[in-house]
């Protein structure tokens, strides 16, 4: 059991016995009368002063959310108010979403954090009211005259503490915005809230650490070039041991047709590495002319969880490197927030990428017209196209030892709209795919509970609660269809869902989609396969006589 996790029996008891707004119990106190309480498991370590300084963020110092005095800089109220005014002028979304909410409550029970904690301030509408109340007090017109009337309040250190707590109990997953009649997106509110907090040095080390690493070494994990290469090569060796196929990926190679970029978690972290092995097998299978960069060695972008400027800074490396290497287009691996940035932000921030060409699959000739400007294709689009054209030799029976379900990652579903491609691939590489209930998949998918840079150990209490709705839906297919494998297309999912499954649904393992592709690919000249990429035995391949090969 992780250190900061609540005891399962106690948490279950809490769900069942403690009065909660979710169950219809009206709290004793009004929304803003409840003070925030930081305790073990519900706050992330603040960023180290040297990291804050190095990145040029404000107010580097030693502090902790549990301190009474957060050592906010002099004039912090003005900094926040000026920062708010500036953002209201730059982001229509921010201004509009503060103004148009009618508090209809449609979003209230759509948030995984509200469903998992029952905390009133985790209703998306209430989370936004944390900022709206300050906005009304200082900005618009008639509201000033009628203070109590429209829920305005003064900006105090208590408000900042509340912002810090609840803008880190939002993973910017956008589920609420699907249901909002005005499309109000709490992710926009949270992003602005976090930008404002950074102006006065209220931050999170789990986000700023990776940002700093990514800036310097090219990836969140801080892997230096030689180690990065070693690690990918060792995965290639594992593939050779397992299949007998020798794969020699190239790095920083000029003139390759395609630059492949994936989250560094796929290179370093279990179980992401098996997904990486899947990519390598796939590229070998089709003879793709590709290279991997050690400089642009991160698909993800934790800068996106601090400010749009930092997101731009980290994202810029992709085009910068693609230009230097002279590739034709970029292929991106499985990741959620990476694709939110690539799909909705990259071309705007760092384009136009006129030094690249419109992506064309070298194997099928398919022109990816939907990526005509950004020139970056998602691996699931790429692979789905290969399968559709019959270019892959697949044996889905090789995944018969897994009973799968598919978790749509928030950003891919609600910030990109890629729903069918991964399902098409999954149906072609395994025989046992069962969907979770309809209110928990596709555009209504539930977050893993740990997105947007809060997947840190000391935050486990909140993560396990926030992930409860997802875990609950997995449990449903586990009970009805014996599902034991949760397939994802997101590196943060691969990093965080194992802990969530161990807690709520022991016996369910987490897989990347291309790991299953890698299992199913029949490679030319391969050895007889009896084990999958994890070296787990495959079902139906144990017996020598059954195999005609």
């Amino acid at each position: 059991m992780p250190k900061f996790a609540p005891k399962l029996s106690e948490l279950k008891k809490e769900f069942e016995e403690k009065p909660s707004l979710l169950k219809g119990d009206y709290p004793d106190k009004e929304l803003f009368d409840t003070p925030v309480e930081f305790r073990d498991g519900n706050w992330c370590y603040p960023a180290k002063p040297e990291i804050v300084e190095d990145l040029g963020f404000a107010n580097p110092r030693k502090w902790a959310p549990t301190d009474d005095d957060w050592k906010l800089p002099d004039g912090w109220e003005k900094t926040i108010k000026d920062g708010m005014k500036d953002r209201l002028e730059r982001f229509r979304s921010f201004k509009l979403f503060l103004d148009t909410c009618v508090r209809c409550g449609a979003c209230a029970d759509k948030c995984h954090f509200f469903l998992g904690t029952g905390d009133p301030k985790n209703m998306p509408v209430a989370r936004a009211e944390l900022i709206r109340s300050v906005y009304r007090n200082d900005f618009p017109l008639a509201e000033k005259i009628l203070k109590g009337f429209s829920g305005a309040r003064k900006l105090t250190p208590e408000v900042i503490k509340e912002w810090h707590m609840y803008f880190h109990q939002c993973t910017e997953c956008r589920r609420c915005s699907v249901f909002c009649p005005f499309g109000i997106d709490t992710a926009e509110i949270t992003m602005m809230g976090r930008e404002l907090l950074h102006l006065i040095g209220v931050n999170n080390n789990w986000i700023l650490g990776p940002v700093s690493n990514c800036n310097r070494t090219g990836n969140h994990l801080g892997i230096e070039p030689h180690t990065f290469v070693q690690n990918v090569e060792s995965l290639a060796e594992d593939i050779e041991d397992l299949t007998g196929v020798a794969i020699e990926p190239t790095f920083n190679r000029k003139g390759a047709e395609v630059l492949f970029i994936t989250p560094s978690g796929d290179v370093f972290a279990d179980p992401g590495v098996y997904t990486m092995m899947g990519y390598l097998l796939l590229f070998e299978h089709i003879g793709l002319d590709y290279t991997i960069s050690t400089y642009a060695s991160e698909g993800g972008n934790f800068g996106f969880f601090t400010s749009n400027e930092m997101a731009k800074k980290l994202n810029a490396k992709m085009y910068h490197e693609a230009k230097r290497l002279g590739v034709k287009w970029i292929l991106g691996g499985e990741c959620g927030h990476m694709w939110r940035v690539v799909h909705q932000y990259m071309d705007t921030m760092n384009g136009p990428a006129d030094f690249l060409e419109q992506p064309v699959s070298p194997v099928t000739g398919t022109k990816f017209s939907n990526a005509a400007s950004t020139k970056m294709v998602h691996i699931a689009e790429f692979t789905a196209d290969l399968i559709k054209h019959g270019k892959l030799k697949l044996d889905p029976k090789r995944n018969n030892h897994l009973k799968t379900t598919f978790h749509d990652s928030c950003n891919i579903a609600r910030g990109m709209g890629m729903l069918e491609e991964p399902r098409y691939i999954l149906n072609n590489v395994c025989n046992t795919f069962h969907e979770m209930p309809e209110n928990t998949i596709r555009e209504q998918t539930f977050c893993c509970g740990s997105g947007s840079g809060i997947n840190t150990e000391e935050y486990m209490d909140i993560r396990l609660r926030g992930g409860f709705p997802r875990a609950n839906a997995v449990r449903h297919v586990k009970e009805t269809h014996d599902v034991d494998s949760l397939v994802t297309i997101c590196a943060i999912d691969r990093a965080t869902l194992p802990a969530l499954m161990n807690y709520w649904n022991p016996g369910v393992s987490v897989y990347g989609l291309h790991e299953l592709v890698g299992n199913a690919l029949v490679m030319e000249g391969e050895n007889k396969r009896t084990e999958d990429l994890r070296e787990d035995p495959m079902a139906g391949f144990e017996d020598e006589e059954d195999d005609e090969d």
Partner: protein
Amino acid sequence: MKKALMPLVMVVLLALVPYVAVQFAGLDFLFGVIVPYVAIVVFIGGFVYRVVDWARSPVPFRIPTTCGQEKSLDWIKQNRLESPSNFWQAAARVLSEVFFFRSLFRNTRAELHNGPKLAYGSSKWLWLAGLAFHWSMLVIVLRHYRFFIAKVPGFVQLMENVDGFLDVTLPALYLTDVVIVAAVTFLVVRRFQDAKVRLISLPADYFPLFMIFAIAVVGIFMRYITKVDVMSVKDLMINLVHFNLTLPEGIGALFYVHLFLVCVLAMYFPFSKLVHMGGIFMSPTRNLSNNSREKRHVNPWNPDIKIRTYAEYEDEFREKMKKANLPVEKK
């Protein structure tokens, strides 16, 4: 309850003011001419100001919330409404929100059962009541057009005939009158009954509901019970439209209550949450097409950011890169 009390008192007071002023102080001119003009100026001026104010802030990023399959490979069916890839599809998406409250139609209700187990049930009452409320409001507002123009246009006549098809009272009972009172009642009761909504409700949420309720009830009273002198009312309105500042006789104080509440609501409108009427058209998560990889979206304030270039990276790691047989730019 406390949060509903203040707006309730406000509405009662606002209703009493013109009644007393007209009935006992003879201030017909103030409430029949001056206040309506002020109200219309504030309403239009304020609303334009708000919309222009929103429009002045740019949309730096293309951020539609995609609620369906994007346009990608030819053989994958795109959801044109929920993941629009061009202007017209996005326009259809916005209009489906405006006319049918499409997103609200998705509404579910989460329930926590022992286990613990979450279940999501269909919950369309808010959608139904909201739609009934807004549509009947629109029909009622359009029906009132007959008071502002000498010859009643055909569409208004048609609307009245359809609305009054039940023909059960004299004058004929309008269906929308019944629906709006029922829908507003539901929306108020819901704010009390659902603990979640009760907690987030502000006095500013009850106020417009009570105002609209009062306006509707006074209107119904005038039409079906006290039978206000409709021709005088029409004379007044036509006079106002033509800037003829004479006041017809014998309209009755109840009408001034109705008119005054409408005027207050109109003046309150641009400075309150009621601006959602304009906001819904401008919401960037709904009105943008999901084609940001196909066509570049331009951010007018795109900042210049100094990045860590490859050259700087290589400078730091060159020796390590060489040892790992990685190609380098500078030997």
